[in-house]
């Protein structure tokens, strides 16, 4: 049956200036085409707001950017690495792409500080173990080499204990920044939605990501708590973080974004600077959408 399988679009060499480049991204569930041949470039420092009616493929587009959703066709490049290529270690790339979900998705079985520390400690521990294994083999190989040809051992520079202490300090610093240091030992189920979402954001920040992906970060919140979360995202934006935000908060999109994308029917129908998109929209579908939500 292999002949029947549609050939995938071959990848073109990515633009080195783009942080994320999407080429002919298509995603379909059976007959339903959710994303239809999207090609887009995102450069460093851009803040992109993705707006559009429900079912237009906004969230799917975002989830394809870190291949949480496997694209049916097309390619996603992050810093020149093709994320759809099985040879690329996706876990290594995802470390530098933070993601924040509508439903927060804090780990329920861990308290706040462990939530934040888990990933930094885990990945560094993994690296440490890898260097140790490598050193072990170099040592064995060195036994059979002449003195002047011996390979030097790699020094990871940190012990497991140091990794943990550092991660803890960093986590506390991040919690301090959002004013929740006193909640470090609390469990997620005891926190309010706004607190949970802010912790989810700093959890992603703990990995020092190059880009942050927000999937409707305020849609599951009480109106009261939307403000505190948006404020934190704005602060990040001012700090120069590259971000892609799927949102229904038009005022926020207008204020923060450097570029607004309007999606409909799996395509990016119109995009441009926020003033242009909100003030003088060309596309009739966008006009209709804006008249309903503004």
């Amino acid at each position, binding site marked *: 049956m292999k002949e029947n399988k549609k050939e995938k679009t071959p990848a073109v060499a990515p633009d080195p200036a783009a942080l994320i480049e999407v080429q002919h991204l298509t995603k379909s569930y059976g007959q339903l085409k959710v994303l239809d041949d999207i090609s887009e470039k995102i450069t460093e420092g851009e803040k992109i707001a993705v707006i559009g009616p429900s079912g237009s493929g906004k969230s799917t587009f975002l989830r394809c950017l*870190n291949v*949480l959703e496997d694209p049916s066709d097309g390619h996603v490049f992050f810093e020149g690495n093709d994320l759809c290529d099985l040879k690329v270690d996706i*876990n*290594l790339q*995802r*470390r530098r*792409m*933070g*993601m924040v*979900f509508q*439903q927060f*998705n*804090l*780990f*329920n*079985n861990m*308290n706040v500080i462990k939530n934040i520390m*888990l*990933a930094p400690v*885990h*990945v560094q521990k993994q690296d440490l173990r890898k260097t140790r294994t490598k050193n072990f083999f170099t040592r064995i190989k060195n036994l059979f080499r002449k003195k002047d040809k011996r390979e030097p051992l790699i020094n990871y520079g940190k012990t497991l204990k140091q990794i943990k202490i550092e991660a803890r300090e960093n986590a506390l610093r991040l919690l301090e920044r959002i004013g929740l240091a006193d909640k470090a*030992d*609390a*469990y997620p*189920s*005891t926190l309010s939605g706004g607190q949970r979402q802010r912790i*989810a954001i700093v*959890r*992603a920040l703990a*990995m020092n990501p190059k880009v942050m992906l927000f999937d409707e970060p305020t849609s599951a919140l009480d109106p009261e708590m939307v403000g505190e979360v948006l404020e934190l995202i704005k602060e990040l934006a001012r700090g120069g973080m590259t971000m892609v935000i799927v949102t229904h908060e038009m005022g926020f999109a207008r204020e923060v974004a450097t570029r607004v994308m309007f999606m409909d029917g799996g395509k990016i129908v119109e995009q441009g600077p926020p003033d242009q998109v909100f003030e003088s929209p060309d596309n009739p579908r966008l006009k209709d959408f804006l008249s309903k939500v503004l």
Partner: protein
Amino acid sequence: MWQIFWKQFYTEGAYKNILLGLRNTLVIAICGLIIGIAIGTIVACVQVAGRRNKVAKVFSVAGDVYTGIFRGTPIVVQLLVFHFIIFASVDIDGLTEAILVFGLNSGAYVAEIMRGGILSVDAGQLEAGRTLGLSYPAAMLKIVFPQAVKNVIPTLGNELIALTKDTSVAGFVGTIDLTVAFRAISSATYEFIVPYIMLAVVYLAIIIIFTVIIRLAERRLRRNERK
């Protein structure tokens, strides 16, 4: 009739047999459950992984066959098959054999329980772990699995209770368990009422103790959720 029972129980030394039976019943139930949890967890993990990995898929089919066979046949039949066919030419004592069969049997049930537990954890938890750069096995192990275990404790307790009562058929392969020990008294004295009521009371007591222990364990695991 109490005198008859007491005479057989104490003076004739049947209580030794009953203590042995009690020990065997507990050993079979607890060791069986431990084996069952070990097998069940592995089978469940393979089945969950089988949804996305082709190699695991092959093993997951094998797991389906295993659960199908052991859930689809009565435990007595399994005991007889193992005793008279599989272990027919092997010198193995009845207790080990019973532990093995009950372990395999409960493994099939625990596999389904564990699978349900893993699936009951919100998919977002795994996604959040993956987006932070954890591999699939690491995210499963550190995030999904601990939550699944917590969800599964009440059902596992139920399995322990069911298993304990099922051990009453272990006598089919020559193991002395509680039922066999009490039956020995009644057949020696032709007195049925007291031994069998006592037997029921002993089983009831065991189950009540297990229930309390499970409750305590459950509460302990849930404690950290609200603090």
